[in-house]
């Protein structure tokens, strides 16, 4: 299993029945593939649909039904079209139960940086700042290191996405929960040790109890 699939499968366990969930583009969008088939979850895409479904059958794409990355999607029965004001009203008003986003860095305070690398990559924040500021739970889904360099750091060097402590960090090596006291190591993957995780992390991790083995959907 490749690292991204493992991350997506672990994040899938965080999705609560009956909840409204926004999945970011890329890795986060894979989470939807690992949910039980009839789970009572609505996915929101910030470009304007509640009840985002899978890719449409070939030849049945609707140019007016895409996800936030511009890819063709379907709508599930019971879906609702919303405009951007309602979409972000839901996100910023605290009505979104969970968002899953990629990350460039997360730091000791639990703060996320995921929208720019000054001088190199300035895609814009899109809806990320609103999602992190407004969602009830923010789950960061990312590989543990970038070409060997830790992404979980003492303090983000990259510009922050929001001054808000995210709820959970899921990587292919570990599950880490930012708390008031700091980053608590909750789970470690079966093919990693606690020492492996500590070595791949430049932020301090709290290991009070022996972490559980990471489970996957």
């Amino acid at each position, binding site marked *: 299993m490749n690292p991204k699939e493992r991350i997506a499968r672990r994040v899938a366990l965080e999705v609560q029945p009956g909840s409204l969930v926004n999945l970011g583009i890329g890795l986060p969008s894979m989470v939807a593939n690992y949910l039980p088939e009839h789970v009572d979850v609505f996915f929101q895409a910030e470009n304007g649909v509640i009840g985002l479904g899978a890719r449409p059958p070939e030849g049945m794409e609707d140019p*007016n039904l895409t996800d936030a990355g511009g890819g063709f999607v379907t709508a599930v029965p019971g879906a609702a*079209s919303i*405009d951007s*004001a309602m979409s*972000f009203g839901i996100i910023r008003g605290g009505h979104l139960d969970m968002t899953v986003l990629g990350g460039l860095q997360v730091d000791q305070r639990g703060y996320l940086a995921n929208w720019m690398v000054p001088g190199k990559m300035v895609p814009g924040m899109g*809806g990320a*700042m609103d999602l992190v500021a407004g969602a009830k739970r923010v789950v960061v889904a990312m590989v543990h290191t970038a070409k060997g360099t830790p992404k979980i750091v003492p303090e983000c060097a990259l*510009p922050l*996405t929001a001054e808000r402590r995210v709820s959970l960090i899921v990587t292919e090596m570990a599950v880490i929960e930012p708390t008031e006291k700091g980053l608590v190591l909750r789970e470690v993957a079966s093919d990693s040790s606690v020492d492996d995780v500590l070595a791949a992390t430049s932020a301090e991790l709290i290991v009070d109890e022996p972490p559980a083995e990471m489970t996957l959907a």
Partner: protein
Amino acid sequence: MREAISAAAAAELIPDGSTLLIGGFMGVGSPLRMIDALIEAGRKDLTVVANDTAMPGRAIGKLVSVGAIRKAIVSHIGLNPETQAQMISGEMEVELVPQGTLVERIRAGGVGLGGVLTATGIGTPVEEGKQKVEVNGKSYLLELPIKGDFALLAANRADYVGNLEFSLTAHNFNPVMALAAETVIAEPTSIVPIGVIPPDAVKTPGVLIDHLIERAPV
């Protein structure tokens, strides 16, 4: 009762240097014929307010490619490397705005509010140079209203008085932008007689629309 005008006639109304609110999200729900007409007419020095600049060769991306945009106020340019290149070279000024803040700023302009108080952007580069207002012990950024000279909207159906319907994810910024410009031009896919769109199905009342673009060629 409106008269339908051609996209070319609409482009004639829009001078160089105008501020345009353009609907659409990665090109979905964008007024494609009007964008082509602006390029055909050689419009330049435009300020474009939109969610994004789409991709090269698509929707607003076409305006980027021909160098028609002097300033873009958008939330995302990640899928358009030409925008990033023009930003770095200084050909185009880009103001990046969080998507939710962008839609509320346009709404504030449209409904006559003095600004938007939002927590989004606090503690990030977005807060630079902005006034903060304290409410009940919590700090908010004061984000200013946005208005356009023209709003260019895409709609699914219009009726003869200009009432608009939108489809699925092609709503996006269009309904809010209908409130926020001096002159509002809507490009519907089809135009139907009065009464075909029932009152409860209207998303944007026709009284907000100044011009309708004639239906797409069959």
